[in-house]
């Protein structure tokens, strides 16, 4: 079954990436169809695997010593908009416009 416009809109919000055109939406549909093949596999009693190293290694804690840093200048180099040592962002807490008001391909759907 096709993915609803609500879900598509929701995905654009979550991912902050656009479908762009019908091809983009079709791409998702095909991806889901492809992934559905997983349900042919019997996984009763099988634990999900997070990492192939699950048996070999455990994350260790190291001493809380500062071993590197002081690279503010280097790190700021690549930012386009900054003031002193701050990255400058546009105002936050303003949600992305709703589907009807947004400039998105999904509007026509």
């Amino acid at each position, binding site marked *: 079954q096709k*993915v609803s416009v609500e*879900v598509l809109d*929701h*995905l*654009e919000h*979550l*991912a*902050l*990436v*656009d*479908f*762009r055109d019908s*091809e*983009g939406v079709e*791409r*998702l549909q*095909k*991806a*889901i169809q*492809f*992934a559905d*093949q*997983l*349900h*042919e*596999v019997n*996984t009763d009693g*099988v*634990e*999900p*695997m*997070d*990492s*192939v*190293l699950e048996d*070999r*290694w455990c*994350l*260790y804690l*190291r001493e809380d010593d500062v071993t590197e840093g002081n*690279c503010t200048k*280097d*790190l700021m*180099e*690549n*930012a*386009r*908009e900054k003031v002193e040592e701050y*990255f400058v*962002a*546009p*105002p*936050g807490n*303003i*949600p*992305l*416009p709703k589907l009807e008001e947004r400039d998105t391909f999904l509007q026509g759907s």
Partner: protein
Amino acid sequence: ALKDGLLSQVSAALKEGRVTPTELCQRCLALIKSTKFLNAYITVAEETALKQAEESEERYKRGQPLGILDGIPIAVKDNFNTAGIETTCASNMLKGYISPYNATVVQKLLDQGAVLLGKTNLDEFAMGSGSTDGVFGPVRNPWSYSKQYKEKSVPKSHSEDEESNWVITGGSSGGSAAAVSSFTCFAALGSDTGGSTRNPAAHCGVVGLKPTYGLISRHGLIPLVNSMDVPGILTRCVDDAAVLLGSLAGHDPKDSTTVQDDFKPFELPNLTDVSKLSIGIPKEYHAPGLSSEILALWSKAADLFKNAGAKVVEVSLPHTRYSIVCYHVLCTAEVASNMARFDGLEYGHRSDKKESTESMYAATRREGFNDVVRGRILSGNYFLLKQNYEKYFVKAQKVRRLIATDFVKVFRSGVDILLTPTTLSDAAPYTEFIKEDNRTRSTQDDILTQAANMAGLPAINVPTALSERGLPVGLQFIGRSFQEKQLLTVAKWFEKQVQFPMIQLEEVKKHDSDVFQHQKSASFS
């Protein structure tokens, strides 16, 4: 010191003063210029390379080279951070991004005196199997211009000859594979998440090693799938891959997914007796679409081992055909997470939109990512939705365990090494390849390589023979976790048996010198 292998021979030549690091570097830079049409390099770091070569020369003059890699020109895939050098991932998102640090593997190479020639081309953010989808354009397979290919191809018309006939390198580390294949560097770094080092290695006729997950540090490798990515090694012979591995492997405190075991670099023995070896032939790797040519070659290789006294058995990895589906879900899910860092605030492209943070992020990502990347992000987000999480993501993680267990069972049954094809066919012409979209192609092309990433196992492509079209075909060996020495030993034996021919390139002949003569006599003709 290693007796065999190209790197050890060049190293000897450097020590004896028969060639200097500066000469080597200059030859490579000149060759890069004259093979520009391959589009293998995104950035050529000419000044810094020559400086590194000079410093190397000083060390040789003092009789104090740092090791076998001192003065050796190498190339690095453009998804590894390289301090002071642009790192783009072949994406608009990172155009102009100058890395403030070196990836651990890059640092290790530089610490050994290697000369960094430049950054190689790839599919955007390493997503793809053709090296055709980056913003700097596709990489051309050097074999497209080889005598061997030209002799076999029937041009439609003289003027169309080279322009429409060229074949892809495979991907996503196509630039690195092309660079090694065309002699512009002696070794190159790639990355391998679903086959991205082995696939182009097979198409370009070079050795491509995917090490065990956790052996080599990923710190500084711009991540695609954290649970599967590994740095890949591309060289002209197996011995050289062992040398590179020796320089790169080992625990890195900056990468918590590297194992803490001590790694000891090794020399590869010259195996003469294979009678104690058990080679497994997984029947499911006779995948739909496998060319009859490659099937025949695979069979011939199995016979080679059998006739030499090894035990060759058919084995089964029953979940093979689901591994590509599983990969598809896990990969897109991790990509959705990893690509979230690109928002324009701290680095990379930033949109001019100012209304809100979210609209700026959305516009930045809209402008910075190509269709393939955006598609994977959206798919990944879909599979990670609350209503889909169990159904897709967790399900895929369970299937992953089944795939990994398949391998464990086979290795536990006494098999030492698996022998499989690397690709379904030889390299396709670019015009053919682009007829299908990226996802379809990746699905088809990754089928033989990505189960090894799923299970974290080491795997290597060894160039085996030329196809009827005069293009390279490779075969893949998959080994047990952390048993690279055994894997490479067997690969080296096989390499010696097959005597893969050297590429005959006009461009290289023009730059012929003692050094390249060296390469010719060192490799097999």
